[in-house]
């Protein structure tokens, strides 16, 4: 029986027969249905996904007409910091526009959290203003809410991750509410400076990383920002496929945030005024690429069916079905991109 080259969720090479691939695809779909109560992929979608997984080419591409936009988070971290290329952030933006042909790009600080940007926010806005003179593609300013930074000893609030195991539920909830309010104020201040510097938009990345209070701060900031600067675009990328209920009772516009999956997250984002939503589906490194990709596509397809705003799927190391490895193999990234756009009907990545 023919075997097909594929990978495990940690990137390790794996050869699977068609039956093994299909069994993993069906199990991945089933996991999304069971955990997230997602609508399963239909037979045609599964057949299409199997075709993508079995393609003999090393790298694959989307069919004509299915192209989506290619965006970046942690934008200017990638060349000068992570890859240690000695170029400025301004030059990084130009490289992305003129050489890598990115559709959008993001200016960001090395410490990628809004709280850490506060002390240099005016200088970051100056950098944005200069960048906008030279750039044609949309340039965003991005950072994470990262609510955990507001806990002691870095911040003023008690750490809810320590309070909860002690049974101090009320104290943990109060700490999160206080931190979310302070985070909201910081994000609105920084985002406003960026909007006034001519940023095309603000990117709230990894929203919900510290749970529902983290997401609430990002949604509240979006709403306030859009009221102040209606022409400034907001993109919001999630931290994971399931909003953690570290608080558990927080609501935005009457909707409880804890426990939301992509189909519900996108609707809360739209309600806040978010212009583009970034879906995140985490990779299970102990399962195969086929399992992870099928699970991701199931969540994304359901999300794009209900979305009123563009859905850009986070597709990188450890998310969007892509293996959890520092250097993502292109056989996996291109297959994931194709499946997320053609079957998941995503607007971009």
């Amino acid at each position: 029986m023919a075997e097909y080259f594929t990978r495990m969720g940690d990137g390790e090479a794996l050869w699977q027969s068609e039956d093994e691939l299909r069994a993993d695809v069906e199990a991945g779909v089933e996991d999304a249905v069971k955990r997230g109560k997602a609508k399963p992929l239909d037979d045609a979608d599964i057949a299409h996904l199997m075709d993508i997984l079995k393609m003999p080419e090393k790298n694959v591409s989307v069919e004509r007409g299915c192209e989506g936009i290619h965006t970046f988070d942690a934008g200017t971290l990638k060349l000068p910091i992570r890859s240690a290329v000695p170029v400025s952030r301004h030059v990084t933006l130009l490289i992305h526009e003129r050489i890598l042909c990115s559709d959008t790009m993001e200016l960001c600080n090395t410490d990628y959290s809004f709280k850490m940007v506060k002390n240099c926010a005016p200088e970051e806005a100056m950098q944005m203003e200069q960048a906008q003179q030279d750039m044609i593609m949309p340039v965003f300013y991005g950072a994470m809410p990262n609510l955990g930074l507001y806990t002691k000893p870095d911040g003023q609030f008690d750490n809810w991750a320590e309070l909860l195991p002690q049974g101090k539920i009320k104290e943990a909830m109060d700490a999160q509410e206080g931190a979310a309010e302070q985070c909201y104020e910081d994000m609105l201040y920084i985002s406003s400076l960026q909007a006034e510097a001519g940023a095309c938009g603000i990117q709230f990345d990894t929203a919900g990383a510290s749970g529902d209070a983290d997401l609430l701060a990002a949604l509240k900031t979006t709403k306030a920002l859009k009221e102040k600067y209606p022409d400034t675009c907001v993109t919001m990328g999630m931290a994971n496929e399931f909003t953690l209920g570290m608080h558990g009772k927080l609501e935005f516009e009457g909707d409880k945030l804890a426990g939301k999956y992509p189909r519900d997250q996108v609707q809360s984002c739209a309600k806040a005024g978010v212009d583009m939503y970034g879906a995140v589906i985490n990779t299970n490194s102990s399962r195969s690429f086929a399992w992870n990709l099928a699970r991701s596509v199931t969540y994304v397809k359901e999300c794009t069916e209900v979305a009123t705003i563009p859905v850009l799927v986070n597709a990188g190391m450890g998310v969007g079905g892509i293996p959890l490895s520092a250097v993502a193999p292109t056989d996996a990234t291109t297959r994931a991109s194709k499946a997320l756009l053609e079957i998941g009907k995503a607007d971009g990545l």
Partner: protein
Amino acid sequence: MVMKGMRIGEAKKYVADKLHCDVFDLTDSAKMKEIRESLDLGTVNDRPHASYGMSAKIKIAELLDIKIPSVELFKKKLGAAL
């Protein structure tokens, strides 16, 4: 898509209509080079006297009938509508 919150299909059609081309042409790099050069919207390769950066964006904002925040800021600094 960024400035009007459109889904990808709607955004492609909007841009194609404004450029008077087919949606198919938007992902044909040879065709788009011709269109961008003829409208002076900026291209990947720089050319003598061609627009890039802010000057290209001003033209894009007019052509696509969108408000680009940095263009609006630039106009405000000049103190006159462009």
